[in-house]
């Protein structure tokens, strides 16, 4: 967990703070656990047998990362083939896409690459891509090598992490990593809302090494202090 900047009541903090809206879509084959990841993230619950999603489900979740408020508008798409053609509706205008595969089913990992290609060709130009290998709690059944996936993610500058919706491991971190990787320029949500106000992030923050490695932005070395001002805007 990243440290919450300050304030002992995160709920109250979220209520008063300026929020950035982030449209995120989850993509990936049927049964890899997209809905379970979203459920874990949004309501911190897990159900062993979810019905398969129809079209896509929509959910909201607010999160404070490094003193900044983010409101995720999550489109959890259906993995079934018959809904495949609808995907552009959900990644259209999205700030980020989380591509999920199942670490215990090699075939779902292969689908990741075709999603990446599709996003690169037809998705928004600056879309942040995250790749999540779900079901990492089932180590015995593993079919996808972690290192391979990680290398691939790095090669395309995508965020990578292995998650488990069952144990909750890395689920919130995944979304925090997404938030950190969003381009700074469209920070204040369009523009007008705050006029001339500048979003001052709380002083440069000490960041712990995250399980989620952001492709280009987070060096693979140990903990680094990364002043926000060094980001290009």
């Amino acid at each position, binding site marked *: 967990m990243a440290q919450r900047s300050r304030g002992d009541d995160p709920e109250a903090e979220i*209520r008063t703070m300026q*929020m950035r*809206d982030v*449209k995120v*879509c989850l993509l990936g084959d049927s049964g890899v656990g997209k809905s379970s990841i979203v459920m874990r993230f949004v309501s911190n619950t897990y159900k062993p047998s979810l019905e398969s999603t*129809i*079209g*896509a*489900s*929509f959910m*909201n979740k607010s999160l404070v990362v490094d003193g900044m408020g983010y*409101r995720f*508008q999550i*489109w959890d798409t*259906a993995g079934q083939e*018959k*809904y495949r*053609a*609808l995907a552009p*509706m*959900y*990644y*259209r*205008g999205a700030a980020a896409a989380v591509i999920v595969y199942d670490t215990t089913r090699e075939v779902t990992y292969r689908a990741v690459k075709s999603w990446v290609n599709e996003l690169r060709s037809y998705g928004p130009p600056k879309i942040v891509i995250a790749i999540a290998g779900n079901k990492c709690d089932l180590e015995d059944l593993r079919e996808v090598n972690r290192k391979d996936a990680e290398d691939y993610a790095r090669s395309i500058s995508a965020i990578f992490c292995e998650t488990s919706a069952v144990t909750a491991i890395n689920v919130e971190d995944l979304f925090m990593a997404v938030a950190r990787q969003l381009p700074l320029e469209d920070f204040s*949500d*369009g523009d007008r*809302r705050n006029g001339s106000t500048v979003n001052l992030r709380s002083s440069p923050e000490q960041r712990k090494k995250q399980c989620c490695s952001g492709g280009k932005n987070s060096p693979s070395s140990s903990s680094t202090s990364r002043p926000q001002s060094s980001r290009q805007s």
Partner: protein
Amino acid sequence: MGDTQFHFRIRQCPGRKPTVKAHNAYNRDCPITLQSESAYYYGFVYFRQTKDRTIRRGYFQKSVVLVTKLPFVALFSQLVSIIAPEYFDNGEPSLEAACHDIDQWPDPIPGDTLNLPIMGTVIQVRVPCRSDRLVGGVQAKSQERHTIPAHSVLPTLHEVDIYSAFHSILPHVQLLWELVLIGEPVVVMAASPSVTCNCVQALINMITPLKYCNDFRPYFTIHDSEFKEFTTRTQAPPPVILGVTNPFFAKTLQHWPHIIRIGEMGGLGTSPKPLNKLKKAASLKTLDSKPGVYTQYKSFLAKDKMILKRLMKGSQSKRPVEAQNAILRRHFLELTQSFMIPLERYMASLMPLQRNISPHKGAPLLRQFDPEEFLQTVEHSGPQLTSGIKGDWEALYRRFFRSPNFEGWYYQRQREVNQKLQVLHMEALSNSNLVEWIRDKEEVEIVDLILRIKEKLKFAINNHTVVQQESVMKLQKHLENIVSALPDDLQTVIKT
């Protein structure tokens, strides 16, 4: 050819349940004009027609129709324009996806701002509430923080752009307002259903906050089941507003007293050619006739030239259509309110006085509406107090009294007031010391009281939303005490 959007309105089969139960709470707090339809359905249509040689008839022709009882014209038009193109491209799964999204939508609670996810985007729209201030902006509610700046913010749930709808017939809008107010039969003819349905909806909108109580059909065709009923020449034209495109109607409805012919819209921003002259209805022979208003109706009120000048000026100075629409809307809102305020005031004077509400008499009732008595008040405190428009207001009221619009308004007010009186009476009853009161009373009187209390409790069940729970508890307590004070044999009779 290409894509066309419009909406229609049809009667529900008789014998079906009149309202959806889930709409009851909504209907109670929403503006009267936005209540869900009890006997009609709206259909919002997105129609695509393109050449396609692979199809036997040479054309791809399909519509997506959204059927609803809620008159959210702006929202549902927007909605179907999102859903339909996806359906044409990707087939049924996109309809499943859309329905799945709509399933997750929150109830339309009046006063709330709703975030409505639909196919990868979120529509944000506010549901108006009966207590909204009509003139001036709507104050944002404290629940603001629940709202997310969505991908598309819809400025209105239900309003259409009346300025654009009336663009080519602006000089006659006030006359049209009178026709709608008094419930005259009107037919709108144009080449496209999107034009007719905008115009019909704009006509209905013009008398807001008053509800238009006659039938209206934004797009009426020869296939509608009321075709015979509406076009018969053996009776006077029915008091409905129809939008039609089929040239056949030019002949069939030739005898109608008021015909609006809308031509193709010129580019927005160009000043409309004022078609000042009204034309005799009989001169309308074909649908090729010139745009204009064909009627022999003589307005009761003098034309307000100020508003027309303002709009002309705005149009010359390229004022945005939204602003023009807002000006025109506001004008009609004020005009309708000027017309209604004297009626509201008179209605209030029919209320019985608070001191006449006695627990030992029946609930007082509202006095009967007396048109003549009302018209006497118009002389000194009529619409002239709030509107600069001159004319024969009294005669306009007389016509209005004969219209369903008046009837609808009157019954609504009567219901509200009588309910209020019942509540006050119930409170008076629950607050009086009934046990003390029955001490020296005959059994007959006591039984009478018991029946009255029972009746009140029944009323409380049917109107649980407006009745204070405390009064109900007190009454129940009273009832128990009174019954237990009766002789045993009578008690058993009462309890059965």
